[in-house]
Protein backbone atom coordinates (compact mmCIF):
# COMPACT_ATOMS: atom_id res chain seq x y z
CA UNK A 1 0.00 0.00 0.00
CA UNK A 2 2.91 2.28 0.85
CA UNK A 3 4.37 1.82 -2.65
CA UNK A 4 0.97 2.22 -4.32
CA UNK A 5 0.50 5.60 -2.65
CA UNK A 6 3.90 6.80 -3.84
CA UNK A 7 3.31 5.48 -7.35
CA UNK A 8 -0.04 7.29 -7.44
CA UNK A 9 1.71 10.61 -6.84
CA UNK A 10 1.48 11.02 -3.08
CA UNK A 11 4.50 12.40 -1.26
CA UNK A 12 5.64 12.25 2.35
CA UNK A 13 4.08 8.83 2.71
CA UNK A 14 4.50 7.63 6.27
CA UNK A 15 3.30 4.53 8.02
CA UNK A 16 3.30 3.27 11.57
CA UNK A 17 2.00 0.09 13.11
CA UNK A 18 -1.20 0.36 15.14
CA UNK A 19 0.19 -1.16 18.32
CA UNK A 20 -3.02 -2.28 19.95
CA UNK A 21 -4.61 -3.97 16.97
CA UNK A 22 -5.34 -7.66 17.34
CA UNK A 23 -8.01 -10.14 16.39
CA UNK A 24 -10.44 -11.26 19.06
CA UNK A 25 -9.94 -14.97 18.47
CA UNK A 26 -6.50 -16.36 19.19
CA UNK A 27 -6.67 -18.76 16.24
CA UNK A 28 -7.32 -15.87 13.86
CA UNK A 29 -4.54 -13.86 15.51
CA UNK A 30 -2.13 -16.78 15.05
CA UNK A 31 -3.02 -17.11 11.36
CA UNK A 32 -2.68 -13.36 10.90
CA UNK A 33 0.76 -13.36 12.49
CA UNK A 34 1.84 -16.20 10.23
CA UNK A 35 1.05 -14.01 7.22
CA UNK A 36 2.57 -10.90 8.77
CA UNK A 37 -0.83 -9.26 8.95
CA UNK A 38 -0.89 -6.03 10.93
CA UNK A 39 -2.83 -2.80 11.16
CA UNK A 40 -1.03 0.34 10.07
CA UNK A 41 -1.69 4.04 10.06
CA UNK A 42 -0.69 5.77 6.84
CA UNK A 43 -0.49 9.45 6.07
CA UNK A 44 0.47 11.09 2.78
CA UNK A 45 0.20 14.38 0.93
CA UNK A 46 -0.93 15.32 -2.55
CA UNK A 47 1.70 17.86 -3.67
CA UNK A 48 0.47 21.44 -3.63
CA UNK A 49 1.68 22.13 -7.14
CA UNK A 50 0.03 19.10 -8.74
Amino acid at each position, binding site marked *: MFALLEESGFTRVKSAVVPRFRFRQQS*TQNSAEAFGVK*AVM*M*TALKPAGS
Partner: protein
Amino acid sequence: MKDSADAQASLEAVLKDEIIRMYQEVADDPAGEFHFFHGREAAELFGYEAEWLDRAPAGAVQSFAGVGNPHERADLKAGETVLDLGSGAGLDAIIASWGVGATGQVIGVDLNPSMCLKAQAHAAATGTNMECHEGRMEEIPVADESVDVVISNGVINLSFRKRRVAEEMYRVLRPGGRISITDIVSAKQLSQSIVNDPKLWAS
Protein backbone atom coordinates in the same frame (compact mmCIF):
# COMPACT_ATOMS: atom_id res chain seq x y z
CA MET B 1 -7.11 -12.35 -20.82
CA LYS B 2 -10.85 -11.75 -21.09
CA ASP B 3 -11.53 -14.92 -19.08
CA SER B 4 -9.23 -13.63 -16.38
CA ALA B 5 -10.97 -10.24 -16.34
CA ASP B 6 -14.37 -11.93 -16.22
CA ALA B 7 -13.28 -14.15 -13.34
CA GLN B 8 -11.98 -11.09 -11.47
CA ALA B 9 -15.24 -9.21 -12.04
CA SER B 10 -17.24 -12.21 -10.89
CA LEU B 11 -15.14 -12.59 -7.74
CA GLU B 12 -15.47 -8.87 -7.03
CA ALA B 13 -19.26 -9.09 -7.32
CA VAL B 14 -19.37 -11.97 -4.84
CA LEU B 15 -16.98 -10.14 -2.55
CA LYS B 16 -19.16 -7.03 -2.62
CA ASP B 17 -22.12 -9.09 -1.39
CA GLU B 18 -20.01 -10.72 1.32
CA ILE B 19 -18.67 -7.37 2.56
CA ILE B 20 -22.18 -5.92 2.68
CA ARG B 21 -23.42 -9.00 4.54
CA MET B 22 -20.63 -9.01 7.11
CA TYR B 23 -20.71 -5.33 8.02
CA GLN B 24 -24.50 -5.22 7.94
CA GLU B 25 -24.39 -8.03 10.49
CA VAL B 26 -22.16 -5.94 12.75
CA ALA B 27 -24.60 -3.05 12.45
CA ASP B 28 -27.70 -5.18 12.99
CA ASP B 29 -26.29 -7.33 15.77
CA PRO B 30 -23.67 -5.27 17.61
CA ALA B 31 -23.75 -7.71 20.52
CA GLY B 32 -22.77 -10.55 18.20
CA GLU B 33 -19.46 -12.38 18.31
CA PHE B 34 -17.07 -11.51 15.51
CA HIS B 35 -13.44 -12.42 15.00
CA PHE B 36 -12.50 -8.74 15.20
CA PHE B 37 -13.10 -6.31 18.04
CA HIS B 38 -15.86 -3.86 17.31
CA GLY B 39 -18.02 -1.23 18.95
CA ARG B 40 -16.87 0.83 21.92
CA GLU B 41 -14.43 -1.87 22.99
CA ALA B 42 -12.52 -1.52 19.71
CA ALA B 43 -12.70 2.27 19.64
CA GLU B 44 -11.30 2.48 23.17
CA LEU B 45 -8.59 0.00 22.25
CA PHE B 46 -7.47 2.34 19.45
CA GLY B 47 -7.47 5.43 21.61
CA TYR B 48 -10.73 7.13 20.64
CA GLU B 49 -11.49 9.76 23.24
CA ALA B 50 -14.18 8.78 25.75
CA GLU B 51 -15.82 12.16 25.18
CA TRP B 52 -16.31 11.35 21.48
CA LEU B 53 -17.82 7.97 22.27
CA ASP B 54 -20.15 9.43 24.90
CA ARG B 55 -21.25 12.18 22.55
CA ALA B 56 -21.80 10.11 19.39
CA PRO B 57 -25.05 8.19 18.87
CA ALA B 58 -24.93 4.75 20.48
CA GLY B 59 -25.76 3.04 17.19
CA ALA B 60 -22.75 4.57 15.48
CA VAL B 61 -20.44 3.53 18.33
CA GLN B 62 -21.83 0.00 18.58
CA SER B 63 -21.37 -0.61 14.87
CA PHE B 64 -17.79 0.66 14.75
CA ALA B 65 -15.57 -1.90 13.01
CA GLY B 66 -12.33 0.00 12.43
CA VAL B 67 -8.76 -1.21 12.86
CA GLY B 68 -7.15 1.94 14.24
CA ASN B 69 -7.67 5.65 14.78
CA PRO B 70 -7.37 7.76 11.59
CA HIS B 71 -8.17 10.91 13.59
CA GLU B 72 -4.89 10.67 15.45
CA ARG B 73 -2.96 12.26 12.58
CA ALA B 74 -5.72 13.79 10.46
CA ASP B 75 -5.09 17.24 11.95
CA LEU B 76 -8.47 18.51 10.78
CA LYS B 77 -9.06 22.23 10.59
CA ALA B 78 -12.22 24.31 10.63
CA GLY B 79 -13.79 24.67 7.20
CA GLU B 80 -12.13 21.64 5.61
CA THR B 81 -13.95 19.05 3.51
CA VAL B 82 -13.38 15.48 4.63
CA LEU B 83 -14.14 12.30 2.74
CA ASP B 84 -14.64 9.14 4.81
CA LEU B 85 -14.02 6.20 2.54
CA GLY B 86 -16.13 3.28 3.77
CA SER B 87 -18.11 5.33 6.25
CA GLY B 88 -20.17 2.46 7.68
CA ALA B 89 -22.51 3.55 10.46
CA GLY B 90 -20.85 6.97 10.57
CA LEU B 91 -18.75 7.18 13.74
CA ASP B 92 -15.57 8.40 12.02
CA ALA B 93 -17.51 10.84 9.84
CA ILE B 94 -19.26 12.28 12.88
CA ILE B 95 -15.99 12.69 14.78
CA ALA B 96 -14.47 14.33 11.68
CA SER B 97 -17.40 16.74 11.50
CA TRP B 98 -16.55 17.97 14.98
CA GLY B 99 -13.02 18.61 13.74
CA VAL B 100 -14.03 20.70 10.72
CA GLY B 101 -16.90 22.51 12.46
CA ALA B 102 -19.99 24.11 11.02
CA THR B 103 -18.10 25.66 8.11
CA GLY B 104 -16.65 22.32 7.08
CA GLN B 105 -18.20 19.40 5.30
CA VAL B 106 -18.06 15.62 5.67
CA ILE B 107 -18.83 13.25 2.84
CA GLY B 108 -19.21 9.53 3.40
CA VAL B 109 -18.96 6.82 0.76
CA ASP B 110 -20.10 3.29 1.41
CA LEU B 111 -20.80 0.21 -0.65
CA ASN B 112 -23.98 -0.44 1.28
CA PRO B 113 -26.85 2.04 0.73
CA SER B 114 -28.56 1.08 3.98
CA MET B 115 -25.35 1.89 5.89
CA CYS B 116 -25.33 5.30 4.20
CA LEU B 117 -28.87 5.93 5.45
CA LYS B 118 -27.87 4.78 8.92
CA ALA B 119 -24.80 7.02 8.95
CA GLN B 120 -26.82 10.02 7.82
CA ALA B 121 -29.43 9.35 10.53
CA HIS B 122 -26.70 9.10 13.16
CA ALA B 123 -25.11 12.29 11.88
CA ALA B 124 -28.45 14.12 11.87
CA ALA B 125 -29.01 13.03 15.48
CA THR B 126 -25.85 14.93 16.44
CA GLY B 127 -26.78 17.95 14.34
CA THR B 128 -24.10 17.07 11.81
CA ASN B 129 -24.66 17.71 8.15
CA MET B 130 -23.16 14.67 6.49
CA GLU B 131 -23.86 13.56 2.99
CA CYS B 132 -23.28 9.94 2.12
CA HIS B 133 -23.01 8.40 -1.32
CA GLU B 134 -23.39 4.75 -2.17
CA GLY B 135 -20.38 3.79 -4.18
CA ARG B 136 -17.17 1.89 -4.60
CA MET B 137 -13.80 3.13 -3.45
CA GLU B 138 -12.40 2.17 -6.87
CA GLU B 139 -14.78 4.71 -8.44
CA ILE B 140 -15.34 7.28 -5.73
CA PRO B 141 -18.55 9.20 -6.52
CA VAL B 142 -16.98 12.56 -5.70
CA ALA B 143 -15.70 15.30 -8.02
CA ASP B 144 -12.02 15.81 -8.85
CA GLU B 145 -10.03 17.94 -6.39
CA SER B 146 -13.01 18.55 -4.13
CA VAL B 147 -11.81 17.36 -0.72
CA ASP B 148 -9.03 18.39 1.65
CA VAL B 149 -8.66 15.19 3.63
CA VAL B 150 -9.44 11.54 3.02
CA ILE B 151 -9.87 9.34 6.07
CA SER B 152 -10.57 5.63 6.01
CA ASN B 153 -10.55 2.90 8.60
CA GLY B 154 -10.08 -0.77 7.76
CA VAL B 155 -11.66 -0.65 4.33
CA ILE B 156 -9.05 -0.42 1.57
CA ASN B 157 -7.73 -3.90 2.37
CA LEU B 158 -11.06 -5.25 1.15
CA SER B 159 -10.42 -4.08 -2.40
CA PHE B 160 -8.89 -6.28 -5.09
CA ARG B 161 -7.78 -3.11 -6.86
CA LYS B 162 -5.83 -1.15 -4.28
CA ARG B 163 -3.81 0.74 -6.90
CA ARG B 164 -7.05 2.06 -8.31
CA VAL B 165 -8.19 3.11 -4.83
CA ALA B 166 -4.94 5.02 -4.29
CA GLU B 167 -5.39 6.76 -7.66
CA GLU B 168 -8.96 7.66 -6.81
CA MET B 169 -7.98 9.16 -3.47
CA TYR B 170 -5.37 11.22 -5.30
CA ARG B 171 -7.94 12.36 -7.88
CA VAL B 172 -10.52 13.63 -5.37
CA LEU B 173 -8.00 15.47 -3.21
CA ARG B 174 -7.24 19.11 -3.80
CA PRO B 175 -3.56 19.91 -4.39
CA GLY B 176 -2.04 20.09 -0.93
CA GLY B 177 -4.66 17.68 0.41
CA ARG B 178 -3.82 14.68 2.56
CA ILE B 179 -4.86 11.25 3.63
CA SER B 180 -4.97 9.75 7.10
CA ILE B 181 -5.95 6.12 6.94
CA THR B 182 -5.70 3.04 9.08
CA ASP B 183 -5.83 -0.35 7.45
CA ILE B 184 -4.71 -3.95 7.44
CA VAL B 185 -1.65 -4.95 5.47
CA SER B 186 0.02 -8.29 4.97
CA ALA B 187 3.77 -8.80 4.75
CA LYS B 188 3.31 -12.01 2.78
CA GLN B 189 1.36 -12.78 -0.36
CA LEU B 190 -1.95 -14.33 0.66
CA SER B 191 -2.56 -17.81 -0.67
CA GLN B 192 -4.80 -18.21 -3.70
CA SER B 193 -7.28 -20.13 -1.54
CA ILE B 194 -7.77 -17.01 0.59
CA VAL B 195 -7.89 -14.67 -2.40
CA ASN B 196 -10.53 -16.83 -4.05
CA ASP B 197 -12.67 -17.15 -0.93
CA PRO B 198 -14.83 -14.04 -0.47
CA LYS B 199 -15.63 -14.95 3.14
CA LEU B 200 -11.95 -15.08 4.08
CA TRP B 201 -11.09 -11.99 2.04
CA ALA B 202 -13.91 -9.96 3.60
CA SER B 203 -12.57 -10.97 7.01
